[in-house]
């Protein structure tokens, strides 16, 4: 097979960058590969992805040396639009990439630009709608779609143009577990049945590691490619099954639940599902009380009659499919969105945003305005008349090293941590985080988990709305699942996640209900 995408000695420095974002990259991706770019946040993955169709450096400027060739065409000699017939790109924030208003027109846009004839175009739009299960959204305005729907429409719009290479930046970060699996299955079908080449970057390795056949490991701008087991095994931060295999010395390292089951079958089995004292502790005072809550946007009712208590010391994970009302629940708890009926109380009174509840929104960039990370956190402290420094908050989230940097120059994952620190600095009794692991690498995720747990101690509580089942498994002391605007499951994470086909974490899938994290399993076995 020929290499459809080649990087030869590519080094690139952003216009105001001090260090190269990617350095001396040699990479060859064969036609028909399903390739995954992995590595810490800010290590150059997005840069490499954007270099694969010439957006870097043609749209960004900066210093570029070396050569990238796409199907034999040099990206310096061809503008991105001259490569559109070969390579399609889906950016991290798919909403910002939409050009037209209707979903169906958006799908046709790329083909219109390429001059595909109308009859052929019509058929391909229909096929693509089916492939990503979108026929119901055909007439919708792209602005009214939920995050997950936007992601699928963006992928469909890229696919419809019929490229040979599809490049996607974190395509599952906004999707619920089922949606993510559907997208991965659709991508695999394209690779297997149609010989398409797919290159994607993703942090949630448990969602993708089992699907891909090539992995590209990033470390401070340098890359190394190989088999997924080889590259992910060397990262030290793979999906839970891989981490378990590393701790137990399994060889070969498992990347999937299936492989982990096979490896575990030979060895001793952990005795009883563990009892985590933090998770099963006595319930203390109530921090947040929700009674008969109904909430709606314009003419759509999102929450219908919801009752919920959040207790001291609790970390409550709110889960549910895209559009289930998780974000709305958080906004109501924070006192930002007025409920249409029912009652919400924080510590016995109406919630005061930023005082009783600090909420970090999904689009965390919306609150960054300062010229340095330190000033960003100070802004919150100043607003509540607090004289202290930003240091402790930054240290707690492991971003003290970024204190002097401008938030705009950071990676998406790093900016999310800055926004989280800025919200946490409200020191409110209830900390609410909306999808806090988008773009976060596993190491940053570990620190976030430690931080949220520490917050909940000492008479406070945290609510985390997330699609990330491994996050819920690691951080939550209690899980609720929303569907159709109501609570359909509520309880101990082991029970709620263990009882679910969709939301079960990897350890549950390998060892059965009750097992949530690799650490628990290792502890029980040794």
């Amino acid at each position, binding site marked *: 097979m020929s290499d459809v995408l080649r990087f030869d000695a590519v080094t690139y420095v952003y216009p105001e960058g001090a260090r190269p974002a990617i350095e001396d990259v040699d990479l060859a991706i064969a036609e028909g590969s399903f390739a995954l770019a992995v590595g810490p946040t800010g290590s150059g993955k997005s840069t490499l992805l954007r270099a694969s169709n010439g957006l870097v450096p043609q749209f960004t400027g900066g210093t570029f040396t070396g050569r990238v060739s796409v199907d034999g065409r040099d990206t310096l000699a061809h503008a991105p639009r001259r490569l559109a017939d070969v390579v399609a790109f889906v950016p991290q924030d798919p909403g910002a990439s939409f050009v037209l208003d*209707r979903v169906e027109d958006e799908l046709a846009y790329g083909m219109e630009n390429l001059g595909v004839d109308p009859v052929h175009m019509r058929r391909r739009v229909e096929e693509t709608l089916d492939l990503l299960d979108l026929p119901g959204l055909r007439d919708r*305005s792209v602005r*009214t779609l939920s995050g997950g729907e936007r992601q699928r429409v963006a992928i469909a719009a890229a696919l419809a143009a019929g490229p040979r290479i599809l490049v996607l930046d974190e395509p599952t970060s906004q999707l619920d577990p089922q949606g993510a699996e559907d997208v991965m299955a659709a991508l695999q079908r394209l690779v297997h049945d149609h010989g398409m080449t797919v290159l994607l970057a993703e942090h949630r390795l448990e969602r993708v590691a089992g699907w891909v056949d090539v992995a590209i490991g990033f470390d401070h701008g340098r890359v190394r490619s190989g088999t997924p087991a080889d590259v992910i095994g060397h990262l030290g931060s793979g999906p839970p099954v891989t981490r378990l295999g590393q701790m137990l010395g399994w060889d070969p390292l498992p990347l999937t639940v299936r492989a982990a089951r096979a490896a575990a079958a030979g060895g001793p089995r952990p005795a009883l599902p563990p009892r985590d004292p933090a998770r099963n502790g006595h319930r203390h005072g109530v921090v947040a009380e929700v009674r008969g809550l109904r909430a709606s946007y*314009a003419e759509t009712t999102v929450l219908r009659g919801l009752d919920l208590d959040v207790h001291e010391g609790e970390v409550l994970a709110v889960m549910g499919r895209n559009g289930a009302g998780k974000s709305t629940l958080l906004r109501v708890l924070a006192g930002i969105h007025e409920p249409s009926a029912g009652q919400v109380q924080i510590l016995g009174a109406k919630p005061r945003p930023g005082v009783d509840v600090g909420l970090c929104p999904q689009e965390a960039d919306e609150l960054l305005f300062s010229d340095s990370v330190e000033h960003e956190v100070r*802004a919150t402290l100043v607003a509540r008349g607090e004289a202290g420094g930003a240091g402790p908050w930054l240290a707690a989230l492991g971003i003290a090293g970024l204190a002097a940097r401008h938030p705009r120059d950071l990676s998406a994952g790093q900016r999310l941590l800055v926004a989280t620190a800025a919200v946490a600095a409200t020191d409110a009794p209830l900390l609410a985080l909306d999808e806090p692991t988008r773009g976060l690498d596993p190491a940053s995720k570990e620190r976030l988990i430690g931080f949220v747990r520490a917050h909940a101690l000492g008479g406070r509580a945290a609510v985390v709305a997330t699609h990330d089942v491994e996050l819920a498994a690691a951080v939550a002391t209690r899980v609720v699942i929303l569907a159709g605007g109501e609570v359909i499951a509520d309880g101990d994470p082991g029970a709620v996640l263990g009882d679910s086909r969709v939301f079960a974490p990897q350890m549950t899938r390998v060892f059965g209900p009750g097992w949530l994290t690799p650490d628990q399993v290792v502890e029980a076995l040794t």
Partner: protein
Amino acid sequence: MDRRPVHPMAWIVWATSAGFVAFVTTDPVYLLLLWAVSWFVYAGHRVDAEHARSFRLFLTGAMVAVALRTALVFFGTVSAANTTFSFLEGLRLGTILVIFGTFNAVTDPFGLVRMAPRHFHEPALAAALALSIAPRTVAGVGRVRDAQRMRGIRIHGARALPALAVPVLERGMEEAHTLAESMDARGHGAGRRSRYRPQPWTGAAILIAVPAIAAAATFLAASVGGWAVLHPQTSPIVWPEADPLLLAGIGLLAVPGVVGRPER
């Protein structure tokens, strides 16, 4: 049934006709009726909250324009006649703004780009980007204000302005940049364009465009023929007239309020 939106050209015809009517008269009866007609049409076609906010922005802008134009009189001799004259001039300007607000709220600017002939593609694109700025900014202001409140920063007073303006502008710039990148990456301007499902002139589109042209023609005839008063006398002030034929003309501009409405 075709559930696609009305042909954008119908809206261009409607807005141009309504704008022409507002342009040729300073009669407050006609102008205030045009405000009502614009609101009625907007209310029948708005699709989401973002559009509603953007329309409200134009409405506010129109009222400010009326107030400012009227206030100009204080820089010269203040008299009842002068004030009335300035007020009517301002009202005309405000009316045009409200009509434009309705047009902006009911059409998809990028849908217009696709219709533009190939040679006008680039200017049409620039115009579409400009048209999309108002609704984007309005939506951004709401979201950023919420985001800052959620960490205890309240936006009021000049000191808090950076907390609102910086994220709105930066996000706006970033979105525009991503959009430009995305369009290029998807082959925009590579030549060889083709058209997907050209939008048909539906009955609704004709029912929007034809009466609008008739309305504009009525006012044109009145303006040229002089058989009705379009600019009421302000010195001395007289009660404005309301010609039944011209009232009917404005009524024709309200037809879109009841046809081609999107499904909710």
